[in-house]
């Protein structure tokens, strides 16, 4: 034993004079660290109710419950997470996965209540003292539990794409599709938003499983135009995809296309296995566009004999004569149509109702009529001189090109308008070798065209001149040309809070000369085939129908849908109108067997 070892321990006394480690009021003097994983906060306004928090929680501590104030909001399930603190382990995985970054944790960690039910609460809805805590755990910038960026679609480069009408988007490889399908969080908000309520999460799931036949079956339940929609759908689903809130939305459209591209048309019959038991009823459809053919498909599945009357010489409507083939190749449109026709749908081409057959005749000969004649009449610009021979309509130019005719646009072209038809007309003109200027009344950001279309048309060399208002069309010196007088516009705030209005600046006028001017500012319907009396009966306003339940018109036998009857005027809405009308017609024809939940021959809901 040495003396040092005996004395050394007495050093402890020195510590008696040091500051103690402990605090007297720990929860007050010592708040949780700024990133502490304490009680949950949900900014319920920002939350979209995607339920990813619920899916990831290994403790099943989160239930998604309906919250009245959010029900019915677009892009919102109307549900909010309800926490059960009897189960939570404060791992914060729910915060990490939250697609909207609305879910956080506070740094509060002490909570005492006599009422055990209080520990079961809907964050952000039930008032809690920590709801506005500044501190607490947040998902760190740069930390992701799913890939925020989408798998890029390979596109023809703009200098190549303008050389031909070849499809610009090249399609995903299997590996790419699987990676993109992996990004889906399976919330189903897309299903609610899709006009046709396509079962998006499930068909995306089928990609992850590599089961494309299943994917095809799922798609046909609600949409017999998957090859088409997989290319040109307006994809409202993607605009609400919660993955797009902090990153890029899942490429739902491209995934749909991928599935169809994997399945050979010859196998459709076997895979979809649509068994038809004839019902004895006869239904007439006017117009072989997506609306008419969608109705034809679902009516045929119910066993009704379907005759489609089509004025043109092929089927597809605006998908054929409007949408250019670099976006939707004929072969893919035909793939969809061929399967519908294969079920025994009779299409009478070159048969215009009102000319070749009277509408009244159909009412007499058929048990029901579905009318989906689309919008075929270009709207006027309502300026002087627009009847000039060198002013062409976008629809006409597109139809000519689709039919293999030369629209004769020349080398210098101005396109008037900012919608999709204008973009299509402009890009088609580029492919025909023209220099293209697009004149649009408002700002580029205000253009109704798809942002992708605007971007691609610019890439392909179209020159967009925004805030340009056409004033007058005049004859040019060269009779093969035409001049347009247009003025610059200032955007003026609407005092009532509406969107800003372009106001013509009289002192900033320009006159330019082109080989032709393509007007593409909208289109209206042509319902002249209906008698005045029918038109009155059918309550047509501004050239459009306002259908009732199940697309039924004021005439009991007549159902209407597609562009003539909806405000969205896109393919998927027409497809859903057709499907919905088929349900309505089924209700009319077989009222006893009709239930609101319809099933197909496999017993699946349709």
């Amino acid at each position, binding site marked *: 034993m040495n003396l*040092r*070892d005996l004395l050394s321990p007495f*050093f402890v006394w020195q510590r008696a004079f040091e500051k103690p480690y402990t605090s007297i009021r720990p929860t007050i003097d010592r708040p949780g660290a700024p*990133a502490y*994983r304490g009680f949950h906060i949900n900014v319920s306004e920002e939350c979209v109710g995607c339920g990813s928090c619920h899916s990831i929680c*290994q403790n099943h501590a989160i239930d998604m419950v309906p919250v009245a104030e959010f029900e019915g909001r677009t892009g919102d399930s109307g549900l909010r997470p309800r926490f059960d603190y009897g189960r939570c*382990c404060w791992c914060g995985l729910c915060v990490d996965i939250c697609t909207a970054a609305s879910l956080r*944790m506070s740094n509060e960690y002490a909570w005492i209540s006599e009422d055990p039910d209080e520990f079961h609460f809907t964050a952000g809805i039930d008032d809690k003292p920590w709801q506005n805590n500044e501190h607490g755990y947040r998902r760190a910038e740069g*930390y992701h*539990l799913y890939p925020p960026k989408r798998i890029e679609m390979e596109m023809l480069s703009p200098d190549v794409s303008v050389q031909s009408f070849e499809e610009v988007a090249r399609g995903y490889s299997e590996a790419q599709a699987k990676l993109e399908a992996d990004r889906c969080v399976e919330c189903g908000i897309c299903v609610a938003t899709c006009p046709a309520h396509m079962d998006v999460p499930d068909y995306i799931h089928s990609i992850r499983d590599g089961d494309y036949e299943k994917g095809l079956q799922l798609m046909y339940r609600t949409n017999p135009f998957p090859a088409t929609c997989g290319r040109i759908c307006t994809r409202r689903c993607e605009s609400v995809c919660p993955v797009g809130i902090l990153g890029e939305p899942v490429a739902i459209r491209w995934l749909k296309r991928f599935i169809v591209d994997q399945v050979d048309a010859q196998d459709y019959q076997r895979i979809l296995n649509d068994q038809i038991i004839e019902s004895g009823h006869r239904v007439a459809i006017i117009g072989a566009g997506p609306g008419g053919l969608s109705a034809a498909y679902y009516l045929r599945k119910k066993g009704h004999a379907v005759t489609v009357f089509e004025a043109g010489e092929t089927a597809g409507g605006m998908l054929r004569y409007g949408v250019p083939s670099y976006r939707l190749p004929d072969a893919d449109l035909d793939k969809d149509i061929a399967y519908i026709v294969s079920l025994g749908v009779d299409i009478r081409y070159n048969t215009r109702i009102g000319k070749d057959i009277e509408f009244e005749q159909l009412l007499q000969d058929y048990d029901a009529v579905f009318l989906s004649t689309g919008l075929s009449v270009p709207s006027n610009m309502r300026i002087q001189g627009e009847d000039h021979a060198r002013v062409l309509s976008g629809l006409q130019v597109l139809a000519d090109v689709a039919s293999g005719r030369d629209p004769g646009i020349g080398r210098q072209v101005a396109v008037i308008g900012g919608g999709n038809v204008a973009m299509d007309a402009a890009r088609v003109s580029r492919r025909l070798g023209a220099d293209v200027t697009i004149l649009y009344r408002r700002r580029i950001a205000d253009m109704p065209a798809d942002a992708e279309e605007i971007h691609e048309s610019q890439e392909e060399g179209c020159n967009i001149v925004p805030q340009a208002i056409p004033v007058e069309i005049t004859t040019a010196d060269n009779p093969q040309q035409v001049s347009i007088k247009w003025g610059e516009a200032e955007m003026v705030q609407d005092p009532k809070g509406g969107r800003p209005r372009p106001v013509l600046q009289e002192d900033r006028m320009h006159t330019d000369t082109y080989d032709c001017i393509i007007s593409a500012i909208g289109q209206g319907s042509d319902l002249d085939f209906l008698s005045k009396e029918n038109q009155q009966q059918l309550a047509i306003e501004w050239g459009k129908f306002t259908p009732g339940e199940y697309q039924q018109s004021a005439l009991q036998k007549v159902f209407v849908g597609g562009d003539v009857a909806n405000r969205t005027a896109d393919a998927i809405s027409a497809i859903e109108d057709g499907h919905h009308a088929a349900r309505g017609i089924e209700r009319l024809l077989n009222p006893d067997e009709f239930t609101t939940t319809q099933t197909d021959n496999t017993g699946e809901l349709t």
Partner: protein
Amino acid sequence: MTLSTGHSAALDFAQPEPPDLSSGKYVKLWQGPQHPGITGNMSLELVLDGDTIVSCKTHVGYLHRGFEKLMERRTFIQNFTVVCRIAVPEPTFNEYLYSHAVEEISGIEVPERAIWLRTMNLEMMRLASFLMWIGGQSGAFGQYTVPNWTLAYRDYVLDLFEEMTGARIYHMYIVPGGVRAGLPDGFEERARKIMKGAEKLLDQIERVMFNNVVFKARSKGLGIITPDMVDPYGIVGPNARACGLARDIRKDEPYLAYDRLDFETISGNEPDAYGRAYLRLQETRQSINLIRQCLDHAPTDGPFQADMPNVLHWKVPAGETYVKAECTRGEYGYYMVTDGSEFVRRVHVRGPSYTHAIAVMERLAVGTNIADIAGLMVSLHTYPPEIER
């Protein structure tokens, strides 16, 4: 490197004749499982002759929580929140090894910044755990001042964890793919301050606990592990190093950033409770030093997470791996088998206490006396929870 222990044929594994309890010469005594310390989560069935232990049998099963089984029913991301609970005083090694095993099988490359943050996190864990251990060792010999100091100071280290990870004990910071966040503002400064204080504390502890007649009297000569026991018993970590073997996975098979850190394996030549304690004191200082090095080198920007698939339906390819790291008690290992599904097929967690607290303890206990049994057990630095996953 050869690390022959000179395995000795003399080591006797024969089961001794069980003492004849009916002779009236012996008393049977149970220590645990109701003993309220870390040593008490398992039980020792002791047979005494007077107060000398003539036989020791260990019993476990009181802490079995079935983690390995639970993991088979949770997705790969969900498991990282579970594994930390396997060894309560040292959760981080579970987080790291679980993540590392998943990454190995899936071929995920963890970014540089995460590698450094993980290394620092593991060394912080070693520091916190050693502080708790020092207190435990001192307390087990009846000296209760040091435990108060070290447990309180450990809380400062836990403060750092809280800042860095969002929690004090179950940090859930190291995730498959990287870590969950970078360092918060001002962390480095606060960490350095706490390291400085820890160093001062360790100096005080050396004066009070180590230069102490009572501690020396009780720990010297207690529980001698001879080098020839090391391999047959699977002895690892400080328990092996104290008898002269320079074995440390951080040095021998470096993982994370250890090959870029400046340190030496610490080994001793006093293979008894005192020698092991002193070696751990030095390793505590070493951890402080390594944390400082991590603070010096860890990148302050750049990604801290690899590109991950969507964890909601993450399937890890079929495969198997064994990964290991040097925790405070030696080699901590995860053996993982995956079958290509969304769930792990089997995980086996192997902590050093498995041998140290069972076979080694049973051997070393014989011949010691009843008052030293807790001190002996702590000197092997055992964590019953890691024996029973």
